């Protein structure tokens, strides 16, 4: 069966899925590519998590016990890059690949070959990036990996960057190409491949949030590419974009970076809004409250994200008028974000709720994302931000929105759709253990960071003054606990992949709605060859 299928790869009408390595390497099937993205992002999540374990081990007690401060900086840098570009972003692209065609009744993504390429760039990009860490740890003379933080501020990353900065630049370019291609694919698919009757305002909110995310990606990834290209020419071709000694401007770097960087944080969180907006109605057995206002709120958040970038750089010494503008705009973002949270609460209100695993993660998302959003509002208040800026308070804030926000919602999505992907119900016992351990340990890990931050501990510190010791100890314990808990999810997914467990029906969740539940579980290799008609 396998050989016959492999030789007929190019036939669009063959009855067997190709097997073996070729199935994955040459795949143009949205489901297989989605699976590749999801496994890849999980591998990156564990690798980035391992780097975080090194950071937390070093910060367990004051003093330098395990690594050199130089190596510590490499850990914080690569941890951030791997988690942002390797874990969260590819995971949401994987979900988009799997779910968007199923949700809008399309047979596949619009540009399947490009889809293949946009995935297969990623393993090479991350081999380059992580390779520099491996060389730093084990290579002769320990050549430094990128050590300037994931924000790679010039001139630390240009004039003072290690040789591996060039590897980093190449790697970021490759990740950017991959992201742009993925985004174009989503836009083209959503605009051209909807089933008859699937109007824009009937699309599931996950499709909407991803469509808006895709536009954000297309708008800002080229800006990131511009920033790293300017770094490259500053480093090797005699330009002085960011070098004050040559008439350049180090602050320009921060403006360019954050013009990318702020929309980037919405790129990571908007798909989560879509996921949660699918799961909460399903388990509350009640339609989503305020569908239209959800769409408009998502669009306003996306638009506002282009005029708030300088709130990441209030301390660079901007003029008063500029500072005030960015403060007001940033505060304004909390209005549409608040609308979303209230809509989710209203969806639950007077519903008939049950608390299966996806719902548990989704509710944890709403509560903890709100916590991260509110500390974000505190950070918007500029005079106080002068105190918070670059402390652990900021670290607490963005881990609340990214870990207990984006990543919790990705877990929710995985538990919700794993029956569809694999045909197997995720193991309940392991899943419950995964949820409760993650929930408690993540809060032990991230909540005390607010306190050390307010007490005055700057971020990216390899070592700290003695008054921060007690909290850091508990933060580290929470970190190890959270890290180990994720191995439970590995077990859950491996069991599903090995087809071990209870068989899933086509629609395993009673209240779930949407086209994806009308195809069998696991979803066949090809779905919606004939488009469904949406009434």
């Amino acid at each position: 069966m396998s050989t016959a299928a492999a030789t007929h790869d190019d036939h669009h009408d063959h009855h067997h899925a190709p097997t073996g390595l070729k199935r994955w390497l040459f795949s143009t099937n949205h489901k297989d590519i989605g699976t590749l993205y999801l496994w890849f992002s999980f591998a990156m999540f564990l690798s980035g998590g391992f780097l975080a374990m090194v950071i937390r081990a070093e910060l367990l007690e004051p003093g330098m016990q395990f690594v050199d401060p130089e190596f510590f900086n490499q850990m914080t840098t690569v941890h951030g890059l791997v988690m942002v570009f390797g874990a969260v972003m590819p995971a949401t692209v994987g979900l988009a690949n799997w779910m968007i065609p199923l949700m809008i009744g399309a047979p596949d993504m619009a540009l399947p070959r490009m889809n293949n390429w946009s995935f297969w760039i990623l393993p090479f990009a991350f081999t380059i990036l992580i390779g520099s860490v491996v060389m730093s740890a084990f290579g002769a003379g320990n050549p430094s990996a990128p050590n300037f933080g994931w924000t790679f501020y010039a001139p630390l990353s240009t004039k003072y960057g290690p040789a591996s900065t060039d590897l980093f630049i190449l790697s970021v370019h490759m990740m950017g190409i991959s992201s742009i291609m993925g985004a174009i694919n989503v836009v083209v698919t959503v605009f051209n491949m909807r089933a008859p009757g699937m109007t824009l305002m009937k699309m599931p909110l996950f499709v909407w949030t991803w469509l808006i995310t895709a536009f954000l990606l297309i708008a800002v990834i080229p800006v990131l590419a511009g920033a790293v290209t300017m770094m490259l020419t500053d480093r090797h071709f005699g330009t002085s974009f960011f070098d004050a000694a040559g008439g350049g401007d180090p602050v320009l770097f921060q403006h360019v970076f954050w013009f990318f960087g702020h929309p980037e944080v919405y790129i990571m969180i908007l798909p989560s809004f879509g996921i949660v907006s699918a799961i909460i109605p399903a388990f509350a057995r009640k339609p989503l409250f305020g569908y239209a206002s959800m769409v408009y709120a998502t669009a306003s958040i996306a638009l506002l994200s282009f005029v708030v970038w300088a709130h990441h750089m209030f301390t660079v010494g901007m003029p008063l008028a500029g500072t005030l503008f960015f403060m007001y705009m940033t505060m304004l973002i909390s209005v549409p974000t608040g609308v979303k949270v209230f809509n989710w609460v209203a969806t639950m209100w007077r519903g008939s709720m049950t608390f299966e695993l996806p719902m548990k993660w989704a509710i944890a998302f709403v509560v903890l994302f709100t916590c991260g959003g509110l500390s974000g509002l505190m950070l918007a208040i500029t005079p106080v931000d002068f105190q918070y800026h670059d402390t652990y308070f900021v670290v607490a804030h963005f881990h609340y929105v990214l870990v207990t926000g984006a990543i919790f919602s990705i877990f929710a999505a995985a538990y919700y759709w794993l029956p569809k992907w694999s045909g197997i119900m995720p193991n309940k016992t392991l899943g419950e253990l995964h949820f409760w351990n993650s929930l408690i340990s993540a809060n032990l890990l991230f909540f005390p960071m607010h306190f050390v931050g307010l007490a005055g501990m700057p971020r990216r510190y390899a070592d700290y003054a003695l008054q921060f010791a007690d909290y850091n100890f508990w933060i580290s314990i929470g970190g190890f606990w959270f890290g180990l808990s994720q191995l439970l999810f590995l077990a859950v997914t491996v069991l599903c992949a090995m087809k071990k467990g209870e068989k899933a029906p086509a629609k395993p969740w009673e209240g779930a709605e949407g086209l994806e539940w009308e195809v069998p579980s696991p979803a066949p290799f090809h779905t919606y060859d004939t488009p469904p008609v949406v009434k």
Partner: protein
Amino acid sequence: MQSTLFHRAAAGLTSLMISGMTFASDWTERSDLDLRPGVTQVSQEVQNLHTTVLWIVTVIGLLVCGLILFSMIRHRRSKNPNPSTFHENVFFEVLWTVIPFVILIAMAVPATRVLVQLDDTAESELTVKVTGYRWKWSYEYLTYEDDNDIGVSFFSNLATPPEQYNNPVLSGGLFPYGTAKDLVGKDAPEKDHNYNLEVDNKLIIPSGQKVRFLVTSDDVIHSFWVPDFGGKKDAIPGFVNETWALVPEGKEGTYYGQCAELCGKNHAFMPIAVEVVTQDEFKTWIAEEKEKAASGPDLTPFAGIDQAMEEGKQVYDSACALCHGANGEGGIGLAFAGTEFATNKEHLNEHIDVLVNGRAAMPNFKAQLTPRQIAAVITYERNAFGNDTGDLIQPADVNDHE
């Protein structure tokens, strides 16, 4: 600040909840879980604003969580088997758009006022230029009252000895560089009370007078932050940023801070210590420093190599060891132990030149060290670590070098 309703409510609640918050010039007595009130009027306004906003977001957060919790209990399937079907309500949707907007305006008003105040650096009586270096600070006194030509400047380095922070537990492995390998398995000395905060030369400023800091950098971006003064300002090469502090009379003492922008390997090891003294003490101190600065460099020759070695070791440990290793084994910088550069007499002139004028990543030390210190440290580098060249460099040799 004091006039807003929010503030009064917040202050009342805070005093109920938190009692006995102490003012501490000693940073290590941190204010438990909260932002430090600091010592300046502005830092206290910032803290008030923080408290106000913290209470607002806490109330909103508890409200949201409360509604979710209530719904989870009352609207579960066992209690409410038949779900309602409503999915929009214009009144509520407008309500929860407008109310947050009004709350935001209520927060923006006091925030704007404090921000304007923080921005006002005019009419200062002392101006100090603060320059960030990898990984130390320098302070240059520019003007004080009517004196526009003070000419006093010095560098400020971490005073915590490396043995206190280097406590490796693994040999080799992930501990790639430097001196620390020798310390594996040795008992770490007890850490000082002001571990990683103490410096050799403190920034000295008077109380009761407005001090303007002009903040810049010589290499990468640093950030000058003394939490008790109410905020930080980035030190950016090619830019001069302004910030200010007015420590009230009666609050004299030492205030600590740390670099708050990632600046490379020793980012965590370049603290700031500010000693606030009375105006009389400050005037006496600055006059002495001016006199010392005016008298020119001390070019008295060393009596012998031992004297130069002794002074050189002190300089080496505070200024060179971070990059070149405590035992001259190198790291970010060149190695000295047994190398051609440090042992062959042909390189002696080059050795002096690198310190005086800098080379590639090595900064010049003309501004940071006196000729006597440079002479002492070169002597040390050429005779310590088993080099034993017998070279003795005199202050005049360095002073004459261009």
